[in-house]
Each structure stands twice: as structure tokens, then as C-alpha cells.
């Protein structure tokens, strides 16, 4: 079983990432359309809220701007994941080509780490804002998930350094005659 190069596991993963990326892209576009629709047609807001289980009780009390803000927060968060997905696809493209220690992969992985960190912090800020300012209870659920999220982000940064070192060694090998 091959893990790198054409017709390998990484090639298969690249295809799977393509599917997820375009799916996520459609969701983000749909959200943007919904936000625009909510702003254009005010009565839509309550109907949309009724279909979101955690927000259904608030459907009667929330203002249209609030609904648009909630969806905007979802949209921004998903856009962050979209960028991460796009960068992952580019990394996997180099892996599927068998070009493992590509010099651009370091930059991609670092950017991926910053994006994941940004999405995580944005999530905390949104949660805080929703609970404290808008008084929408979102319940618990940030314990172990937070630890694993930051652990993953640190792993991505470490991997970026591994790729940087690999690219440096590869360049040295290429220029050793």
C-alpha cells in the first residue's frame, strides 16, 4: 500500500478533501445568500430560527439584526475552515504528486495553524458575545474539546517546522554533486 505519490492513499485523501472543500464552499455561499435574504425580507428571520433547535425558543424575541449576526458568525467560522481546507488540499496535492518536502508546504501549514487558531478564538468570542450580550444560552461543551483543538493547532505548527527542515535538507541534497 502506497501512502505518497500518484494512485496512493494521499491521492485518495486529496479527492476526499476536494469533495469536502466544494461542499463547504456551497454551504458558505448558501449562508451568504441567506444573510442577504434575511436582511432583504425581514419575516424570513423567525422562520429560519424555528428550524434551528437551540434557537427555536428565541424565535419570537430576536431581532432580525441578531439573526443576521448569528448567521454571519457561522459564515465567518465556516470561511475560516474553508481556508484551512483549501490549504490542506494544496498540501495533499504536493503529497499526491510525490513532491513531499515542497518549500511552500511550510508556509501553508503555518497559515493553516494561524487560521485554526483564529477560528478557535473567534468561536470563544462569538460564544461569549452570544451568551453575555445577547443572552442566548448555548450550554456547556468547551472543556476537552478546547484542549484537543489547541493541541491540534500546536501539532500543525510543529509539522510546519518539520516540513521546513525537510525542504532545507532536500535543497542541500539537490545541490550536492
Amino acid at each position: 500500500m502506497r501512502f505518497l505519490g500518484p494512485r496512493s492513499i494521499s491521492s485518495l485523501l486529496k479527492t476526499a478533501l476536494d469533495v469536502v472543500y466544494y461542499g463547504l464552499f456551497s454551504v458558505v455561499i448558501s449562508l451568504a445568500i441567506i444573510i442577504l435574504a434575511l436582511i432583504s425580507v425581514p419575516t424570513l428571520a423567525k422562520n429560519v430560527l424555528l428550524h434551528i433547535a437551540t434557537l427555536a425558543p428565541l424565535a419570537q424575541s430576536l431581532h432580525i439584526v441578531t439573526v443576521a449576526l448569528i448567521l454571519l458568525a457561522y459564515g465567518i467560522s465556516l470561511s475560516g475552515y474553508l481556508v484551512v481546507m483549501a490549504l490542506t488540499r494544496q498540501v495533499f496535492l504536493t503529497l499526491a504528486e510525490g513532491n513531499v518536502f515542497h518549500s511552500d508546504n511550510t508556509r501553508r501549514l503555518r497559515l493553516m495553524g494561524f487560521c485554526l487558531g483564529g477560528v478557535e478564538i473567534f468561536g470563544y468570542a462569538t460564544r461569549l458575545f452570544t451568551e453575555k450580550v445577547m443572552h442566548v444560552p448555548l450550554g456547556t461543551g468547551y472543556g476537552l474539546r478546547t484542549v484537543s483543538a489547541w493541541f491540534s493547532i500546536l501539532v500543525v505548527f510543529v509539522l510546519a517546522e518539520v516540513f521546513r527542515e525537510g525542504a532545507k535538507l532536500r535543497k542541500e541534497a539537490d545541490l550536492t554533486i
Partner: protein
Amino acid sequence: MGVRIHLDHLLVKKRLSLIELSDRTGLSVRDLEILRDQKALAMRLKTIELLCRALDCTPNELMTIEN
């Protein structure tokens, strides 16, 4: 300070082209170009031996340390 490889000078002296040197040594033309253009980071002992034999020179003639 760096190591300078006098491949261009030796090629002129021996009236050889890079392609002919490539045929004599078995090294690729691309690798020889890297050496000639002073872009190489390191040289294997085997490469030094091949070049010295093909160009009939000593390692000291092939490369010098520059200030």
C-alpha cells in the same frame, strides 16, 4: 569566504565542452552546470575524483578557497 570551483577555466584549458565532460565522468550536464555556476553546496569525494581524472588535474587545481 567560499570555495570556488574552476570548472570553466579547466574546460577551456582542456578544450572540452560540458557535454564531453559529462560523457567522460558520467555526471549529468545539469550537475556540471551547477558546479560551473558556483551554485553547489557540497561535493562528494567520488565527484572530485571523477572530475580530477577526466580533467587530468589535482583537487587543488579544481577548487580554491576564496576570501
